[in-house]
């Protein structure tokens, strides 16, 4: 069993299964309660109460919603392309979950003389050297691109005009902002000299070690990355694909029951992933005053709160404004940031 490294195979497997379970359950629970938190928070921000009937202060609301959606009828429009229609929710949700696999959610822990890195795609050998997927950042970018397929498939296969328009808008928006988001994190590679997320987090210890505080260019890059990520996952103020005043529900107009819930879950799972990536690349990952995993969770939740805050605050963009912002503002700025960062780092080595 040498292919699984030099630690005993049963320890390797036990650690792997445990990590997979913990990460999956964490993302799933966060997604479920993010919907509750969002409704409650936006309720308070608009001087309403929000859900408060199911369970104490409405805490059972996500569970009630889930059970209800399970028992709803699944309608497949007669003119839809059946296979693509059924496949689309799966293609939208899976990348949102699996990009979490390369994110280190805590410091390595030591149990019975073996070291276990808290990251799914990683392992440590007997000597304690941690190996992880050495192209973690590229993997995250790749998964973000895969999410577009689910939405395009959903929009096209429904064979409905609203869906088609929503799908088209979503795909054009996502690819435009993916470009700026990808170029914004080039500044991170330049500082870290590595694409492995373990290495990137290890390099950010201490408060002013966080990449966002390293130099002014990285600070701007971090903010641009966060905004572009919001646009890429179709969050307000960039939620044009599902602008309900013009497109009913956009690409998922024809979906019902659990399939509709899948798109909803994909949106929130993407939000968790984006906040986790932002934490890892710019905000020091699991470094901080608390135990490592708690730091990570706290930072992710603060960023998710910011997402909801933005949703309650800003009105929606118009489509031409959105594309203008992506191509005429963020793209040139990120290209300049790369140059600026290179010059800064050469001068202040």
């Amino acid at each position, binding site marked *: 069993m040498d292919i699984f490294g030099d630690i005993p195979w049963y320890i390797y497997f036990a650690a792997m299964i445990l990590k997979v379970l913990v990460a999956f359950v964490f993302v799933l629970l966060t997604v479920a309660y993010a919907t509750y938190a969002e409704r409650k928070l936006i309720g308070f921000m608009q001087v309403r109460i929000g859900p408060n009937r199911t369970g104490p202060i409405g805490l059972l609301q996500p569970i009630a919603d889930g059970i209800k959606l399970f028992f*709803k009828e699944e309608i497949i429009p007669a003119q839809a392309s059946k296979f693509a229609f059924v496949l689309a929710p799966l293609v939208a949700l899976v990348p949102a979950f699996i990009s979490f696999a390369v994110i280190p959610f805590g410091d390595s822990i030591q149990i019975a003389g073996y070291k276990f890195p808290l990251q799914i795609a990683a392992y440590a050998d007997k000597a304690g050297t941690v190996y992880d997927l050495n192209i973690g950042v590229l993997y995250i970018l790749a998964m973000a691109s895969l999410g577009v397929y689910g939405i395009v498939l959903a929009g096209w296969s429904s064979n409905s005009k609203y869906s088609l328009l929503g799908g088209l808008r979503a795909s054009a928006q996502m*690819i435009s902002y993916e470009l700026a988001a990808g170029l914004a994190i080039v500044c991170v590679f330049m500082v870290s000299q590595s694409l492995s997320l373990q290495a990137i987090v290890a390099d950010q210890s201490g408060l002013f070690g966080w990449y966002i505080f390293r130099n002014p260019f990285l600070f701007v890059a971090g903010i641009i990355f966060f905004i572009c990520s919001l646009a890429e996952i179709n969050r307000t103020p960039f939620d044009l694909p599902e602008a309900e005043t013009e497109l009913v529900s956009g690409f998922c107009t024809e979906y019902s029951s659990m399939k509709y819930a899948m798109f909803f879950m994909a949106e929130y799972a993407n939000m968790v992933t984006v906040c986790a990536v932002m934490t890892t690349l710019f905000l020091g990952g699991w470094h901080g005053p608390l135990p490592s995993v708690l730091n990570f969770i706290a930072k992710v939740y603060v960023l998710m709160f910011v997402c909801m805050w933005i949703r309650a605050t800003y009105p929606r963009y118009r489509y031409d404004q959105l594309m203008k912002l992506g191509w005429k503002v963020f793209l040139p700025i990120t290209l300049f940031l790369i140059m600026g960062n290179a010059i800064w780092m050469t001068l202040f080595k």
Partner: protein
Amino acid sequence: MSPFAELFPLIVYTIATVLIISGLLLAAWWLGAKTTSRNKEMPYESGVIPSGSARRPLSVPFYLIAIFFIVFDVESAFIFIWAAVWDQLGMAGLLHITFFIVALLLGLAWLWLKGGLEWGPTKQVRGSRSEERGL
């Protein structure tokens, strides 16, 4: 060390996610009501009976955006590679990438000037439309 050891959990996680989500979809299909009718299976168009197929031709700007994306994304792949080793490439690498990025920016400026990034009706179309209305 073996490169497989860190990749294997990723594969397991992917398979587990696909299985669990398909399981959820299947369970919902099995649990949900199944009473269909012709009206229910019609595409939703705000209460109007839909006419014709929805597989309509796309607007050209969407196609242009897709082409621009491919051009810029391939080029950003070169920038990624340079950024990961830029310290070792030194001044020569920096000069090369400066040239490359300036070329990219010039390309973007050209698109901008030619109106490839404009959305909505152009000035000429807007002008001719207002003429038709007698304005």
